[in-house]
């Protein structure tokens, strides 16, 4: 079986569903059609650009270019985590809080995959490293931003309860314990749902793509299992690191709640 080659007409026909959804939004005054249109246009431009860029990067096959691309992806993901927060830290913490956990989790798990299951791939071979790091990074970014947003919003809401615990002699990790557990669950719900529903409710994207591209379904399933383990592991490491850092950032060495370090998004 050979891969299905898509024409521009095929893509436009696929966009019909989005056009119908936007029409419904207009009729029902849901006011999401402009957001849908902007996001769709952004997605098309970004994916076409990345496709063109990867074609060049794969052809060049230069470790320096690959490293540059990986660094740019991590920087962009760090900014994305920051931009999704309802409450943001002032100063260096605004980027450090998201950037550090996603960098650690992504590099650790990507490295683990490249030294074990995917050991035959060269470390800086762009054809392997960029897509692998990209999918892991995207997943960690989602989990981390969801967890941080939930955590900072809960801290604002539960300020009196947290301070009551601190006043009674709890340390910062005990005082923020419930908020942290809840935020961690929030951040991991997507990946847990993805694993629980994989194969029964949904055929995951990677597996779908590989089957459409002609791979044997069982081999595609194995690839998907490998990826799900990597994504869940990286997501969990990222979320745990982010919530731990969040506790350290929202309190000081005297275990005081420092909401003055936060600003609400305008």
């Amino acid at each position, binding site marked *: 079986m050979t891969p299905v080659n898509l024409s521009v007409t095929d893509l436009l026909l696929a966009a019909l569903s989005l056009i119908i959804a936007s029409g419904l939004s207009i009729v029902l005054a849901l006011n999401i059609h402009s957001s849908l249109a902007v996001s769709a246009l952004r997605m098309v431009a970004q994916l076409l650009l990345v496709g063109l860029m990867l074609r060049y990067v794969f052809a060049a096959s230069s470790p320096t270019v690959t490293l540059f691309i990986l660094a740019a992806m991590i920087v962009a993901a760090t900014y994305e985590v920051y931009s999704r927060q309802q409450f943001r830290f002032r100063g260096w913490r605004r980027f450090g809080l998201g950037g550090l956990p996603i960098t650690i989790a992504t590099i650790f798990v990507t490295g683990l995959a490249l030294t074990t299951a995917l050991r035959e791939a060269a470390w800086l071979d762009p054809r392997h490293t960029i897509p692998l790091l990209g999918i892991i990074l995207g997943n960690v970014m989602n989990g981390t931003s969801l967890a941080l947003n939930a955590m900072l919003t809960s801290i604002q809401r*539960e*300020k*009196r*309860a*947290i*301070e*009551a*615990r*601190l*006043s*009674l*002699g*709890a*340390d910062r990790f005990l005082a923020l314990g*419930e908020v942290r557990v809840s935020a961690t669950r929030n951040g991991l719900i997507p990946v847990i749902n993805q694993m629980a529903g994989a194969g029964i409710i949904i055929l995951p994207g990677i597996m779908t793509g590989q089957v459409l591209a002609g791979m044997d379904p069982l081999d595609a399933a194995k690839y998907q299992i490998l990826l799900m383990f990597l994504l869940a592991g990286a997501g969990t490491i990222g979320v745990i690191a982010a919530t731990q850092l969040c506790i350290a950032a929202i309190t*000081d060495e*005297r*275990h*005081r*709640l*420092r909401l003055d370090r936060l600003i609400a998004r305008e």
Partner: protein
Amino acid sequence: MLHAVGRDVPNSPERLAAAQPLVAENLSRGSGHPAFSLTVAAGSCVALSGPSGSGKSALLRLIADLDPGTGTARIAELVRETMPANRWRRLVTYVAADSGWWTSPVSAHMADPEAARRLLAELGMSESLMKAVPDNVSSGERQRLSLVRALIQRPRFLLLDEPTSALDPESTLQVEELLMRVKQEGTGLLIVSHDPAQVARIADRHYVLSRTGLAEANP
């Protein structure tokens, strides 16, 4: 669960600090804010009053080390800055006017449920409140439960921010009686109150805060 630490350990710094006063020196929220110095003797009650925004709550929170600032606080050789913040706060416990609750039921917040039941009886409150969801009890009940929650940890000093602001006159008197008893047992009290009659009933000393500083009323 949280427990009082050190008080029952022979020769622990906390035990050696018993009967020593709480001394706050030049406490301030930082430049541009006034600095306050204050002493609360063990087994005494000091009342603070003053206009809204004068910094009464801020002063209590500074003493409890809940907000950053300058200055120091100590009980004998126990200096706030040189001991872990959580141990300091178990000795010097701040109770907000509308304190928060982090779980359910009420009993899950109490380090010693038996002691809590005894204090509830002393305040004329039903024992069934221990099984209640904090959000489902009245603000006055929550306020007294917050006091009970702090008292059962047996702090050396209690910093009470308007502890009877949500109470009717009868409940207010019951709280005051309880406070007088713990005071006689050696606990020092620093209370923010806007009620001159209450200040006259319970306070040994009375300070008035203004934006410029702290002055003793009727010295």
